[in-house]
């Protein structure tokens, strides 16, 4: 709500929520279409983070020129690199790239690598896909920007299972120790990982308490509530002296009924045509888009 109050002090601006919701829907559709066309990829964790990505790329990130060239740009690092289908789709939905990019996912001789690769896609800011590393790289960016007195923010999205990596807690200590208030991390807390529920694989709770104990400003939100996402991002930006962790409670496979809350759809999966048609329909894709995307 802070974001809306702040906005009211300046000339009226259109409510960003409908725009973000539309971008999130488009992100989900393109992610699923890309995974179908690739014959592999991770739908569950792509669908769970679509609202977060849509909020970041539609309104939050300041990326002058829409490319990773301006040194003063905000940075976003997808530390849970296996959600690359959603990242490419979110870029397309927000107008940074054409639909061809998410639809070319995982194909040989294309730039849409299975996990984001900065040399192919500069907007991914670093290469990820090995859990824990994107978080550290984002910390490095935040440190580097602050060292050079560049007033830009760094955002990174983590998976919940990713937080079982020791490197995450090395980084958690580090970012708090260095007081990186220009860093905002978000956990896509969908409670499921590759094989089973987090709680059965390696429990994370008490999760927010862990981050607070490590010196972070930890917030908990519904990761599908766009207003709550925007408010948390604003709180993060206004919090001095410490990094912010937004624990976003989400639903794995969000938006596709047969995928929701099912570890089976963590991936990497080969989606069948009828499953894909069903999913795209539930996600609100138009018939013409479905026909176009499902044509080999």
């Amino acid at each position, binding site marked *: 709500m802070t974001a809306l109050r702040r906005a009211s002090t300046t000339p009226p601006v259109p409510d960003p929520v409908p725009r973000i919701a539309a971008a999130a829907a488009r992100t989900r559709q393109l992610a699923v279409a890309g995974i179908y066309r690739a014959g592999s990829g991770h739908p569950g964790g792509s669908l769970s983070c679509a609202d977060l990505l849509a909020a970041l790329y539609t309104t939050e990130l300041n990326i002058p020129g829409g490319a990773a060239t301006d040194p003063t740009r905000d940075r976003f690092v997808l530390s849970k690199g296996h959600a690359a289908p959603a990242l490419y789709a979110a870029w397309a939905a927000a107008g940074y790239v054409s639909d061809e990019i998410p639809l070319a996912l995982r194909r040989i001789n294309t730039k849409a690598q299975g996990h984001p690769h900065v040399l192919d896609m500069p907007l991914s800011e*670093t290469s990820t896909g090995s859990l824990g590393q994107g978080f550290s790289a984002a910390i490095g960016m935040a440190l580097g*920007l602050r060292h050079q007195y560049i007033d830009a923010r760094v955002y990174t999205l983590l998976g919940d299972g990713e937080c079982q990596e020791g490197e995450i807690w090395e980084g958690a200590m580090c970012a708090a120790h260095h007081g990186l208030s220009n860093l905002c991390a978000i956990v896509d807390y969908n409670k499921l990982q590759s094989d089973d529920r987090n709680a059965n694989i390696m429990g994370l709770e008490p999760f927010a308490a862990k981050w607070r104990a490590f010196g972070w400003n930890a917030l908990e939100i519904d990761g599908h509530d766009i207003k709550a996402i925007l408010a948390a991002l604003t709180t993060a930006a206004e919090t001095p002296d410490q990094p912010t962790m937004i624990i976003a409670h989400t639903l794995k496979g969000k938006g596709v009924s047969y995928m929701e809350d099912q570890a089976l759809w963590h991936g990497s999966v080969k989606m069948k045509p009828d499953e894909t048609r069903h999913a795209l329909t539930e996600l609100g894709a138009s018939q013409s888009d479905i026909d176009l995307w499902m044509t080999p």
Partner: protein
Amino acid sequence: MSAPALIAQSGDSLRESFGKALAALAETRTRVVALDADIAGGTGLHHFRKRHPARFFQFGIAEQNMMAVAGGMAATGLVPVVTTFAVFCLRAVEQARLSIAYAKRNVKIVASHPGLDVGPDGGSAQALEDLAAFRAIPGMTVISPADPHEMALATEAVLDFDGPVYMRTGRSPARSVYTDGHSFKIGKGHILRDGNDVTLIACGVEVARAMEAAERLAAAGISARVVNMATIKPIDTDLIACCAEETGAIVTCEDHNIHGGLGGAVAEAMAATRPCPIEFVGVRDVFGESGEPDELAEKYGLTAPHIAAAAKRAMARKRRG
């Protein structure tokens, strides 16, 4: 009571030479920052910390995070120099692979305490696998200078080179091979002593031992060429082919496992160009143990007499061939 003398800061070691050179070179290279994991006193980085405190970053005993953070800092235009012991670089090989090499970041990884040269700390601390591990990473330049003088030159070359580098320093007081007038170039081996019968190709602390071996061989009437191959990757293939052609026998000498390091790099280069008999002086696929560096070098076969014996074996095979 006075403070105990820190072994780490004593002697004319490669790490001290690196630390002094880095601190001086950073005066004009303002994008250089240094990263430490609580061992600046041991890596030589204490010189930099003292001279450039605002460009010194502490990460605590957490090398994996530090390595990937370096990649992120480089992404903002800085030139991070990451320092820790070689064995802890091994701990963060995957971070160096993905967040530095795969992302093509201009990061310099400088590893002190490699090999049996570590001495009394024992097998757990003696990295004998680092050259092999880092050499296998695409795009990673791998360097192991021979003495304090070359270390300073290599530090300058590495800072001015655009791309990821893994560079070994060394713990123990090092013997000098060079005085003034040496010029270091990444990717180029250097003929320290000419000879016709066999070539001893060495890196790091083994260069001085190879020179000593050449003296011994000369006394026995054998003319040994000595090459300081400070750059293990990209290896100087032309020089190796030339040595194979002109001397017909090669011995590689390294304070590292005989598998995958300098010996492997030389053998690969030679096999693809001008094959000749080759013998490998190095640690023979075992871990080290506690002891003084020279005692360990003798026990594990790295000293001049072992190199000379290997030279004779290589030459004997040449005659049979």
